């Protein structure tokens, strides 16, 4: 077992909107080890991005309320502290330095009025105010993420670069802080497949070299099984399934994971019809009392009346069987 770096315990996040408290994430617990790639999967509105932003307290407070739980980083050392009880000054030492982010749309994340060089140099100077070879380091970082001719490209403004190059610059910026944890929120969704392949390969290589942990948020199950060591599937603010990526791709346990996998056309397999999940993800103000997937669940449809009542009334707990976790009353 590798050394843990981030430990989330029973984390619940809610938003207070117009006097109403809307739960976004409910009792989430997991950990990430050094050098691990963890994927978080789910549809839009299931709480993946909200959980990721909470690791460096990037959510605006208010309206965000952390109703329970703790985020310990870095775990296992004497310096490990609960991020939720840190002061703003302490968090600034972690944000962008120990925990870096790469977001979905590079053209929105980069500042359009500064050259790439200035934006990366800023991170280096913030990390180490006595850094002298800033120029050299920027060139080194840009060449590491595969930007050709970095010495002249670093003088470019973001709009002068293609989407793939912008995302590489974002990754270089994230690496400039020498993070222990890289959080990549849908890093390739805005990119073409051949560019996506380049970027994913790059993230993997950097992980292999530096041993940092990576959390990758995606809705593409293909990316998960090619990149990740472990997977967390989220649905309506709940963690519904967790385990090694290869096991989940081959034999998903939770009905939601099963449905999600069968809804994607499998490349090279001929299928008459795609499986669909009826309805849509419920909104936080209308979460059902019991299992949040009840109502769209195909497993529940095959159950008897009394068995269905359990699904409708009680939130299932996260069962563990052989290093795999599943939140379902009947599928274990």
């Amino acid at each position, binding site marked *: 077992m590798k050394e843990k770096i981030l430990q989330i315990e029973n984390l619940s996040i809610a938003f207070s909107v117009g006097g109403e408290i809307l739960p976004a994430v409910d009792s989430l617990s997991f950990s990430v080890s050094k050098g691990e790639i963890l994927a978080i999967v789910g549809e839009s509105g299931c709480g993946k991005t909200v959980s990721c932003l909470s690791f460096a307290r990037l959510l605006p407070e208010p309206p965000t309320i952390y109703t329970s739980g703790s985020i310990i980083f870095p775990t296992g050392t004497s310096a490990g502290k609960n991020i939720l009880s840190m002061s703003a000054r302490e968090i600034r030492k972690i944000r962008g330095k120990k925990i870096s982010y790469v977001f979905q749309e590079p053209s929105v994340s980069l500042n359009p009025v500064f050259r790439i060089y200035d934006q990366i140099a800023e991170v280096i100077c913030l990390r180490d105010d006595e850094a002298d070879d800033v120029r050299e380091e920027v060139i080194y970082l840009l060449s590491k993420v595969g930007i050709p001719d970095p010495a002249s490209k670093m003088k470019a403004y973001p709009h002068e670069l293609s989407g793939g190059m912008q995302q590489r610059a974002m990754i270089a910026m994230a690496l400039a802080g020498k993070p222990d944890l890289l959080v990549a929120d849908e890093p390739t969704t805005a990119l073409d*497949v051949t560019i996506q392949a380049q970027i994913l390969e790059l993230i993997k290589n950097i992980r292999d070299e530096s041993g940092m942990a990576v959390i990758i948020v995606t809705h593409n199950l293909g990316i998960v099984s090619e990149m990740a060591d472990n997977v967390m599937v989220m649905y309506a603010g709940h963690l519904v399934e967790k385990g090694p990526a290869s096991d989940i791709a081959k034999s998903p346990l939770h009905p939601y994971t099963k449905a999600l996998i069968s809804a994607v056309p499998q*490349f090279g397999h001929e299928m008459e019809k795609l499986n669909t999940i009826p309805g849509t993800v419920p909104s936080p103000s209308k979460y059902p009392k019991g299992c949040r997937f009840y109502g769209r669940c195909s497993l529940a449809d095959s159950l008897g009346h009394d068995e269905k009542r359990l699904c409708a009334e009680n939130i299932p707990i996260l069962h563990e069987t052989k290093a795999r976790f599943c939140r379902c009353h009947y599928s274990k």
Partner: protein
Amino acid sequence: MPLLKVENITTTYPVGKGWFGPLKHLHAVRDVSFHIEKGETLGLVGESGCGKSSLGRTLIRLEKAQSGKAVFDRTNIFSLNSSELRKFRRRFQMIFQDPYASLNPRMSVRSAIDEVLRVHSALSKEQRERRLASLLEMVGLDPSHADRYPHQFSGGQRQRICIARALAVEPDLIVADEPVSSLDVSVQAQIINLLQEIQNKTGIAYLFIAHDLAVVEHISRRIMVMYLGRIVEIGESRSIIRNPAHPYTMALISAVPAIDRGTGRKRIILPGDVPSPLNPPKGCPFHPRCPAATGRCSKEEPPLALSMNGKEHYSACFYRDDFYGKMSVLSGN
């Protein structure tokens, strides 16, 4: 006879070069020819900027073609005048990527669809009302929601409204430009199934534009691959996916992250980006990124020619027949 026969279409956009500089032309679509049969789905794949949307828009005359012909059921679409075109438009419709942007936020579903029926049909008010209800039912929406506005629907439902509006005039062809790209996977599956059901019921043909090869393979009978404004490969889906005869298609296929693929597979990582269409490379447009390029590729442009990989399978590569059986992505090695 094919439903639509496209011959040598070229679409260019003028690109200004300062006040006094010469006016440049961006060749979005270059000398493209293909056909679509009645009731079939032709998939069109390629990366952003390859001209796939420009081609779709040119076909239904949302863009003006520089040259070429598009013969739709014996009529050349490009030679129609505007009043003839308006009448002819009911034979072909379009669905766009972002359903919210293509619906008027101030028009209820009823008025959006009723407008189409009023313009294109001679139905009475009661008949239109009945047609509206049957259209909404066909796309899986509750007819009692007809008085709602676009913002009251989810993304998938909005795309259903766009489909209902396109179907209102009973077209023979729908150009669907990335219709499922902005949707979640479970909703994406619903819309793909819906499009297929409609095709089975009405015998409509689709030109299905997307960048997701797995989706295109699932829905299409034939696939067409574009790169820098040109068709580089076209053929039956099965043949294209199993035996690609162009290195670009091979790279595209190998780049698709798949859920259950073997581990021994080698991924082809293409170097660099797509070149700018303003300044396309000489010779084969793909040669600067191609792992199999030779000296000949940088001088001559390979024509689209029949390949031995399958019947009706064309590839624009000099070495198209050398790749046969080399790419067995699906068996995992």
